[in-house]
């Protein structure tokens, strides 16, 4: 337990660091959300100054930061000028939508990657291994952007899937079964895109970690004892390879969150990504900071889950604590 608490504390420290970094970046940003308002001759400079004052744009950096920190306990995380609303309530539904894509994509990618990686590792240098290596290299070279766009073309051409958004127009009027069906048909394509983006890295790592373990003396001993190769691979080697693989979970979540920005944007999925890009284009500094913090928090949470799994899976880690 102490181990997890330590990781949690470290995560919070990093989060604080990220908040300072993003505030410094926001401070450097030239121009503000009021630049266009100022050009409007109907609005007097005094009004603009009053608005700047109201949103606290003329405070010093530490002052702004402290003000922002004070708004965290009530879940506001600053104020979005573009949406004229506290940042917090804007972020939560978006973060939920992003999770709705990334969690199934992570699960799906792992479910596919482990068997394929194991298959490739079972006969290194064999036909299966070479096919997997080639396929993962090609898939790795396909840019996220292109993959998303190609899937969209497929959707347009086949007509089976909606080409974007999260719900159909008449969503509110549907029964609960239709609602679920509608949601699934909308999130199918983005989840497939994210899975495919994540897959090649995972397959390679599963293969590499399994190969590492397969050289260990205890595997040789087990092989000598006549345990069949399949059982050896799936029961003994996979368990021993759990440690590096679970550590990889954190990395795969980082990749997914990055890729989801592009995929969400292309498939107009109302997640954190479109919000971030909108906020950057609108110079809505607190909203950018909020989106960045939110993504970092998701990543840290993912890493904590990985740590907890590791703790549960690896008796050596528990023994070290005791």
């Amino acid at each position, binding site marked *: 337990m102490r181990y997890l608490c330590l990781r949690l504390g470290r995560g919070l420290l*990093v*989060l604080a*660091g*990220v908040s300072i*970094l*993003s505030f410094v*970046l*926001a401070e*450097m*940003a*030239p*121009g503000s959300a009021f630049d266009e308002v100022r050009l409007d001759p109907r609005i007097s400079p005094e009004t603009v100054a009053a608005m700047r004052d109201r949103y606290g744009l003329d405070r010093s950096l530490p002052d702004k930061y402290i003000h922002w920190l004070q708004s965290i306990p009530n879940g506001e995380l600053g104020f979005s000028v573009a949406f004229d609303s506290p940042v917090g309530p804007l972020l939560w539904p978006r973060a939920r939508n992003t999770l709705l894509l990334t969690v199934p994509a992570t699960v799906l990618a792992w479910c596919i990657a482990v068997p394929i990686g194991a298959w490739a590792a079972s006969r290194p240098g064999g036909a299966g291994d070479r096919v997997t290596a080639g396929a993962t*290299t*090609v898939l*790795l*070279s*396909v*840019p*996220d*952007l*292109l993959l998303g*766009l*190609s899937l*969209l*073309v497929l959707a*347009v*051409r086949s007509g089976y899937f909606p*080409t974007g958004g999260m719900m159909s127009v008449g969503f509110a009027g549907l029964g609960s079964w239709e609602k679920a069906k509608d949601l699934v048909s909308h999130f199918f394509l983005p989840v497939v895109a994210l899975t495919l983006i994540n897959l090649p890295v995972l397959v390679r790592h599963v293969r590499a970690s399994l190969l590492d373990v397969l050289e260990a003396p205890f595997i040789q001993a087990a092989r000598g004892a006549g345990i069949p190769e399949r059982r050896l691979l799936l029961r003994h080697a996979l368990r021993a390879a759990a440690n590096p693989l679970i550590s990889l979970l954190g990395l795969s979540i*980082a990749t997914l*969150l*990055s*890729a989801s*920005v*592009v995929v969400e*944007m*292309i498939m107009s999925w109302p997640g954190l*990504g479109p919000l*971030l*890009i909108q*906020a*950057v*284009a609108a*110079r809505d*500094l607190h909203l*950018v*900071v909020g*989106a*960045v913090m939110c*993504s*970092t928090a998701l*990543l*840290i949470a993912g890493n904590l889950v990985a740590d907890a799994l590791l703790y549960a899976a690896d008796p050596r880690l528990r023994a070290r604590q005791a």
Partner: protein
Amino acid sequence: MRCRPLLGLLALVYLATVLAGFLSPEDPAAQHRELAFAPPTRLHFMDAAGGLHLRPFVYGLAWSAAADAYAEDRSRISPVRFFVRGAPYRVAGTFSADRHLFGTDAPGPLFLIGSDDFGRDQFSRFLHGGQISLFAGLLGAGLSLGVGIVLGGLAGFYGAWVDETIMRVAEVFLALPWMYLLFAVRMALPLQIAPADAFLLVVSVIGLIGWARPARLIRGVVLSATLRDYVAAARSLGASDVYLLRRHLWPQVSGIALTQGALLVPQFVLAEVTLSFFGLGVGEPVPSWGNMLAGLQRYQVLSSYWWMFVPGLALIPVFLLYYALADALHRRAAGFPV
């Protein structure tokens, strides 16, 4: 594969983009408004009367409302000529010239891979766009690798508080999903800028966000190398820090740094493409592979004009080359037989 042939191929790709002005038949900004989204032009050898021409030629295109498509105007042929004079251009921003590798006589423009929504030659824009996108990735990788080597080297070599400070900051950079970091850093820079500045801007954004990973990697290598006996021996014989860094540590670092560089370039090319795709990078009328793909955000373009995908498709072989190069460099650095 060995490093040399891969490097040669990559050099050819980059050379093609440097010579974009010469290789492309048109100015990348020249518009044919009446020929928006024209499909790739067909090359002909046989004219309407059945006569065979050794010199390939094209027909002029005109919109035919009846067929709802572009139709060839077979009354006049436009022969394709080589080394023709055309729109003036500059090579590498210095040499002025107006010779193009190929071009056509009036009337027909030759669109090798079609035209875009302003009727601009997609092939010319593709080559010029490669100049921006591929070099943004290369320079960005060079920049972040340079910063990473210096900071990582300092952290690993001097240890103590230098190490602690640099690595804590790196940790913050690494804690962010990098696409979010990319846009956060983009926020800190002006929104509307001239295209030429935009290129430098994109490169510096990329350089700023990319240093943390190589820095951490190189710190590890330097740290483990400084603990070696031969370094301790050299130090006890009075070797200076600079000597140690240059003579004993750089050879350890260089191979790993190069491998890392080859892996970073594709990621950073993609960063430029993504920024420009979303209108936050290099803007019109200067082409980049990112803003050329931006048209695909429109449903009609996406579903009807396959040639608009070309800049995205071209990324695949380029990335494959870089990954193969990284693999070859890794093998070389690790002392595998190549």
